[in-house]
């Protein structure tokens, strides 16, 4: 069990985790200021006989300070976040040379369409596997997401990537895997009673392994 975020498996993971840490530090400071402050006050200013509270209606300077500091912090946070957001999901974020894979979601399975050995989706050598996603590491991959019925969600924790798969919409999501290995693809949007078992194997392979796998898999699928 991890007490922290899962292993990092894509180029997004680095900066998402960093951003997470930065926010944790900022909110952590706010957390300690508030919680320790509360504790201190409850101890320091508890009622004692003969004491009387300090009669005041506020202090403009203090209020301006504790309005301004969070305001500046969160706006800065927003600007920084937006930079990374645009890299991951921005309108034209998908790299032009991304390797294309079709992912069709339906209750309750993932149908993965590979471009076949020629590397081009929509040609005769395309083939489709059920619940078995293989992707090459070290180069951008774009998944063309489509749904048959309800809304599903394409979620790979190690990639830090999630994208809803909405019927009636053609949505692309991209990533670049870094570490070959065996992982899992999960459906993370409630899509019916079988939602909990809508899971696929995810295998990240080096480019050479992937090419080799692609050849055999294409043969296996057509024969």
């Amino acid at each position: 069990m991890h007490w922290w975020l899962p292993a990092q498996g894509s180029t997004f993971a680095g900066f998402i985790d960093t951003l997470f840490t930065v926010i944790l530090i900022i909110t952590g400071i706010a957390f300690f200021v508030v919680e320790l402050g509360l504790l201190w006050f409850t101890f320091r200013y508890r009622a004692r006989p003969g004491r009387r509270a300090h009669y005041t209606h506020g202090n403009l300077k203090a209020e301006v300070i504790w309005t301004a500091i969070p305001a500046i912090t969160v706006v800065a946070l927003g600007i920084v976040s937006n930079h990374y957001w645009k890299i991951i999901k921005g309108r034209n974020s998908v790299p032009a040379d991304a390797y294309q894979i079709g992912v069709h979601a339906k209750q309750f399975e993932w149908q993965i369409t590979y471009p076949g050995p020629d590397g081009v989706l929509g040609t005769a050598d395309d083939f489709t596997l059920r619940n078995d996603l293989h992707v090459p590491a070290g180069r951008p991959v774009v998944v063309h997401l489509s749904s048959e019925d309800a809304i599903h969600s394409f979620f790979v924790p190690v990639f830090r990537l999630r994208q809803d798969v909405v019927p009636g919409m053609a949505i692309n999501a991209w990533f670049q895997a870094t570490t070959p290995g065996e992982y899992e693809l999960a459906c993370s949007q409630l899509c019916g009673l079988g939602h909990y078992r809508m899971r696929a194997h995810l295998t990240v392979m080096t480019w050479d392994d992937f090419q080799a796998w692609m050849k055999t898999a294409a043969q296996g699928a057509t024969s």
Partner: protein
Amino acid sequence: MSAHHDDRSFIRKYIFSTDHKIIGIQFLFVSLFFLLVGGLLAMQIRWQLGFPGRPMPGGGILPATMAPGGVILPEYYIQLVTMHGTFMVFFAIMPLLVGVFANYLIPLKIGAHDMAFPTLNMASFWTALLAGLIMLAGFFVPDGAPRAGWTSYAPLSARPDLSGASYGQMLWCISLVCLGLSSILGSVNYITTVINLRAPGMTWFRLPLSVWALFITAILGLLALPVLSGAAIMLLFDQTIGTHFFDPAAGGQALLWQHLFWFFGHPEVYILILPAMGMVSDIVANGSRKPIFGYHSMVFAITGIAFLGWIVWGHHMFVSGMNPTLGSTFMVTTMIIAVPSAIKVFNWMGTMWRGNLRFHVPMLNAIGFVAMFTIGGLSGVFMAATPVDIHIHDTYFIVAHIHYVLFGGSLFALFGAITFWYPKMFGRLMNEFWGKVHFWLTMIFFNLTFFPMHILGMGGEMRRLYDPTQYDFLKPYQPLNTFISYSAFLLFASQVVFFVNFLWSLKHGKAAGNNPWEDNGLEWSLPSPPAHGNWETVPTVYRGPYEYSSPLVKEDYLPQYRKLDTDREPAMTPVSGH
């Protein structure tokens, strides 16, 4: 209006009453009942998550369509989650905050005989009850309860062939249309009352913050609920008469539902927190024996939250496939909403600073509120940052957030508020000792239950997941899930203390007297409980609501209705008594 001579029959007095206080108390009992229902559903959720596939103790009484032999079925699990969320949000917390306290407090705190429209008020209660019963009926219809989550995302919710629930899903829509009607009637009433029926001298900036919060909440409810009703009606039509609003196969849009729902939904979550914040402000000032710190900025913060609340709804849809530029816009607005919340948190601390703190049970719960709401609010900042939300959206990180703001926030505030105004409602105080026991047990087990959920969420455990052990990467987390479940059971058990204390004190509590907390509000000038019509002639207000430890008087409180020699009569003349 005669306050003493009361010759109404029992039915007019306690059942079909138009007295705002009775209606508030009716809401109290009904919504506590629904809170209990929601809690029982949560326990079943926790059983399944802690011990997947094992027969639930006592689960044998459930029919085989839900839990054969006590083993919860996937379809029943989704019903549990859906109904838990729906009941807690719509039928427990919202009526507890708005139904109970807007009704009970507004006229008493502004010095009015009753609501502006007492009959509408009664109608509002009965429609709400009807709505709750319709929702509950979901469990008893063929195919069982609705099962698309409390957010009812279309097209899952629109098509019985996808969700497997036809009648239940329709009942969900019908019930929420009823609830919308009830809320709108209530809001019309609260808004009119606050604007028109304030006692002489009760200027806008002498209103207690609880009234301010309830007033702003009423505006949110007035404008948000009809959007939900409209959306629910369209969804109902999709289910019944074959329209295609949310059906992409015929040109409809799945995201349309999400836009409509969250356009309602986000203001809704502020409906669920603003009244709590308002009442906490009252209680913190009282417990600190100090004027609230920065009254005006508190008011502006409430208004600011309410305004910003309308333009952040897209933060629930960051990864929904919505236009990414909108995502950026909503991220910024969402971030900014932390600012007025910060003002409120720091002003509560400012109120306690150099106070003379009395730790009565309401005060403990109010401090608990500030502490827990802060955690929940801060976890909101993680989700507001779009890149981070990509990873934690729809995981237990969100579930943790929900419960920190709604349980740690709203419900703690409610425990405080109920204890605080209980003596006014029933003439008796709740037991102090058991109140403290309840507070500490709840505080401990609440955190043990919900804090670890952040870890689960970071690890990627999805929400609404029947059986996490299906996934290899979640298997290692199972001990943590089991731990959470044990904590949740103990959390529920701790609520028994409250339950017993509440009921026991009705009869055996210490007699309260008019003003047991030495508070400044107008309601404390009345006997406990106040008679029908509240006042012979409405009181006159001479000052703001938070004059604690004022140098003008020897006591450490100075009620709004107390006239000092130096006070002048307010310019507004009282409404002629009759």
